[in-house]
């Protein structure tokens, strides 16, 4: 029995099994989930390897499964992130309502993702893609919050994307007489220009929807917010990367062999604009989860920009960012989930100063935020650096500026996030809140440690990425364990950075703790603070959390006035009015119907000359 099939079997069977197990008894269900969460990664890392393949025929189509080095990179991400968040969600899911459905869809979407990555032909790719889509849709609407709005929006956009992909697939099949991806890549250049253009663009649309590129991103914030947070970690961290994976395939494997290599640049621009706009939106969110949702869109913007730019370094940066975004955004969503579970809300105007209550969560969030902001010496910096260097080296200067604006503005929401949830005044209402259970904390901590490790030794990830780049046509990408080079030979030596900063920091820590140790009063209440003379009354609000960035909002107000999905909604309304009008065709009067029949016949007979060409 082939190992790929066994892996798929573990996931798919686990999904069904968990559904029925939860029907019978809660404990069984938990057991099954743990089983899957442990078995699948263990099996994956021990038994499955690149190069194994399994081909079979189904419904008259020759289907083939098997990882290549490129999809392997993403598979690593999925297989690390998803089990962790599965374990996390055993602690996170408080309500036992429809748990079976939840875990079924959760595991089934993991099944879909792994399937996408291991499918070597377009049919199975599409099948797994659709499975992933509807499974994640079930999770988006799981909470039952505005199903008619957010859920349908997600489904519509996914469907549009998937079907444009579908169209491209069948047209490619017409030209190639095969669904095999390798064959398609080989013969793509031989198609006529129109077909190349059409299929490529359709595929890009299909993938861009999942990776939330403007103007197809409007589903993302709502969907990310509505999903149960333990899945949002996978949703934003892993599932959106499927789109990135596909974009990489299309741009670098198909278009690079054709005369449409410029498309990548436009996509990069779209990505950069997405990054800027989403960042600006994220800055002004009051709900931590929504903030993260927007920031995910922004980060995906970077990734797409990196891959769209299409130079060796930029693609490298893009894939690296994709992996790392999976890690840190997973951590952040887990942290938010922990807060949501313990405090009951993620509204930053309602809660504050949780650092004392949930120190571990804070630590994980802190590391992840530093990674998100791309500050050394944590892993995020590496990706950011490579992205900038790539953009500068390829002299797309305004692109650089856009990316830079968005990542500078990212500091704003990064701080807002940490401050709003964990810092600031510690109120009595939140004093009772406890740290989240271990099953939730441990995954976060693991991921954050991984991020710290990446800060100094990114080479660990560079190795598989460099191998994967070969599939995209970049043979022998150079990489070093902890030195970054750009294309002009300028470099950053991460070890020196970490050593210097670490030494100074540690020396300083010793120094600042020891000096005047007697007189140092630790952990004062946040109530006794310097208030320039006047004594705050107990009812005074000392927590600055509303309109945090009002001045910035004033600056950006002309830009923020336009929201894209407003236009989409108007469009939808117009269509529905049209349909309502069309219903009147069926007047309900039998005679009218009879009249239709006669008129139709007469019309046909009159037009028969035209129809039958005589």
């Amino acid at each position, binding site marked *: 029995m082939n190992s790929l099939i066994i892996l798929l079997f573990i996931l798919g069977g686990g999904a069904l099994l968990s559904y029925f197990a939860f029907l019978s008894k809660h404990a069984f269900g938990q057991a099954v989930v743990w089983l899957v969460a442990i078995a699948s990664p263990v099996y994956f890392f021990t038994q499955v390897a690149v190069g194994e393949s399994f081909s079979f025929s189904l419904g008259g189509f020759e289907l083939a499964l098997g990882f290549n080095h490129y999809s392997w990179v993403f598979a690593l991400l999925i297989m690390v992130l998803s089990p962790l968040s599965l374990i996390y969600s055993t602690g996170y899911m408080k309500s036992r309502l429809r748990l079976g459905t939840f875990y079924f869809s959760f595991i089934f979407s993991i099944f879909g993702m792994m399937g996408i990555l291991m499918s070597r032909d377009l049919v199975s790719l599409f*099948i797994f893609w659709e499975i992933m889509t509807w499974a994640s849709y079930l999770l988006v609407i799981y909470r039952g919050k505005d199903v*008619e709005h957010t859920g*349908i929006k997600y489904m519509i956009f996914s469907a549009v994307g998937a079907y444009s992909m579908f*169209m491209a697939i069948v047209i490619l099949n017409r030209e190639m007489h095969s669904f095999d991806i390798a064959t398609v890549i080989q013969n793509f250049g031989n198609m006529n220009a129109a077909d190349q253009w059409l299929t490529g663009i359709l595929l890009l649309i299909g993938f861009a929807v999942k990776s939330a590129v403007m103007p197809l991103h409007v589903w993302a914030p709502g969907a990310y917010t509505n999903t149960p947070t333990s899945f949002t970690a996978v949703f934003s961290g892993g599932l959106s990367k499927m789109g990135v994976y596909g974009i990489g395939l299309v741009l670098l494997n198909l278009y690079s062999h054709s005369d449409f290599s410029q498309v990548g640049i436009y996509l990069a621009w779209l990505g950069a604009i997405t990054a800027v706009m989403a960042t600006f939106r994220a800055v002004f969110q009051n709900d931590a989860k929504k903030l993260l949702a927007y920031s995910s869109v922004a980060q995906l913007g970077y990734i797409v920009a990196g891959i769209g730019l299409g130079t060796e370094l930029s693609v490298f940066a893009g894939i690296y960012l994709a992996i790392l975004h999976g890690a840190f955004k997973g951590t952040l969503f887990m942290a938010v989930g922990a807060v949501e579970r313990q405090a009951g809300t993620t509204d930053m105007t309602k809660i504050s100063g949780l650092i004392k209550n949930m120190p571990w969560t804070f630590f994980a969030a802190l590391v992840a935020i530093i990674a998100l902001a791309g500050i050394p010496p944590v892993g995020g910096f590496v990706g950011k650096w490579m992205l900038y260097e790539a953009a500068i080296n390829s002299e797309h200067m305004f692109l650089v500026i856009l990316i830079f604006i968005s990542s500078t503005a990212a500091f704003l929401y990064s701080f807002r996030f940490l401050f709003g949830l964990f810092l600031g005044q510690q109120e009595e209402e939140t004093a009772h809140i406890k740290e989240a259970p271990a099953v939730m904390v441990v995954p976060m901590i693991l991921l954050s440690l991984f991020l710290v490790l990446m800060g100094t030794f990114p080479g660990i990830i560079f190795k598989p990425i460099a191998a994967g780049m070969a599939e995209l046509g970049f043979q022998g990408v150079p990489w070093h364990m902890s030195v970054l080079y750009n294309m002009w030979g300028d470099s950053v030596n991460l070890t020196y950075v970490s050593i210097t900063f670490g030494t100074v920091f540690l020396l300083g820590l010793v120094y600042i703790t020891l000096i005047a140790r007697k007189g140092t009063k630790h952990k004062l209440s946040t109530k006794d603070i310097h208030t320039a003379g006047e004594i705050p009354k107990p009812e005074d609000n000392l927590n600055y959390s509303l309109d945090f960035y009002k001045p910035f909002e004033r600056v950006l107000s002309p830009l923020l006035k336009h929201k894209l999905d407003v236009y989409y909604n108007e469009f939808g309304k117009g269509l529905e009015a049209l*349909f309502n009008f069309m219903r009147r*065709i069926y007047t309900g009067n039998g005679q009218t119907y*009879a009249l239709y*029949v006669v008129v139709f*016949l007469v019309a*046909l007979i009159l037009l028969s000359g035209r129809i039958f060409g005589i």
Partner: protein
Amino acid sequence: MVANPILYIALPLFTAFLVPLLAKLWKPLVRIVPGLVLAYLAIMSVVLMQQVSPEKPIIAMIAGWKAPWGINLVFTSFSGFIASLISILAFFIWLYSFGFKKVEFDDAQKYFILFMLLTAGSIGVVLTGDIFNMFVFIEITSLSAYALTAFYKGRDGAEAAFKFLLIGSFSSIMLLLGIAILYTYTGTLNMAHLALLMPQVPMHAKITSFLLFFVALGIEAEMFPLNGWAPDAYSQAPGPIAASFAGILAKAGIYALIRVSYTIFDLGDHGGFELLLVMGLITMVVSELVAMRQENLRRMLAYSSMGQMGLIMIAFGLGTKEGIYAGLFIMFNHAVIKSLLFLASAYLVYYTSRKKISDLDGFGKLLPLTSLLFGLGAFAIVGLPPFSGFWSKLSLLIATANSHMEFVLATVLAVSVIEIIYYFRVLGRLYFRKAHKEIKVRKPTWNSVVTMIVLALVIIAVGVHPDFITGLLHNAATDLADKADYIQKIIPDLFSQTLN
């Protein structure tokens, strides 16, 4: 066992007229005997499908007259497939309606008589090799359909039935006219013989009769703008009958349409197929768009199945073998899935008078299994893997792409997005709304549950492993595509004469 295509028609007709006598003996026989007969037919069709192949169709002569003089029943891979589909589906619909409504005895009697007539007629339409005979069977089917539509006195069945009848009688007139024209020029009524003599029919007559056939059968096949009767009939007929309209009546209609335009007339490549394609496209678009805005669940399903019929017409309108294959696949899926949807919806809106979609709120908790099956059907009908709907959509798109029709491709896909929207709206209401107060729930009876589960299993099985039926579909497609073979199998001597 005795396996002969004639039994397909003889047995149900016989039972239909036997039922009143049986009632005299023992009332439950009225419910039981039709089931036994249909079960026999179902088993028989399995047996026959194993015997038949494109090379050797099963041809049964009535009263020993050879074609073209006698009327014969032709059980080829194509017609046999549809006939088996209909008979098996009929059996399950009987199983569903076995205890569906504890109506008083007379109604049950009528119900089963009419249902048997409907089945017999539809299978007759599919199997007969004689065009006038086909007309007669169509009339039998429509008459029983009118009566069944008006089955419930409580509802507006009569109104729907009258509209149906009004349009239906137009269809019968046109059919007869078409037949008459053909007969005047060829002097035969046997389909194969007609196909053989078709080249010598003058063009204008050929076209006129073709258009007459096209419109008349288009009415049965729910083609726009001839499908005004469909939504009313679907929404007013009893649940299982709505299912059998989708699975049996419409299938017979589309079969006749295809048989006429593929086998009898040779106009296909001169515009006949294009006409079918365009009308199918229009039908699909209009129906799906209208379905989008329905408040009434049954009407929504009705429009959606009209849309599916449009899809089938598109598939056959492509005129390629792949197209036929896709069309057959969609016919199969539509028969199974839409029946499941209608049967499930019958329980979902059982006690609500207006059958509003808004009455479905919160049924996911009240009727978990039924709602689940409905959802499964919805997933399947919009063509999400791993359900059977996906494969038919895939094959249709491949066929469309291979005949270089990007526009049709795009339209079909765009419309399926709309389909997704309105089906998922319903699902959202089912599962994520608070149930209304004082809502009465009818728990499904065991037999209907069995029926629905079997249909669902078929959907999943075909979805996971489509090779269960692809072989049959391929045979059927090859059989339909090869016209000369059909003629030669039925009237070999005449065929050879014309050849030399």
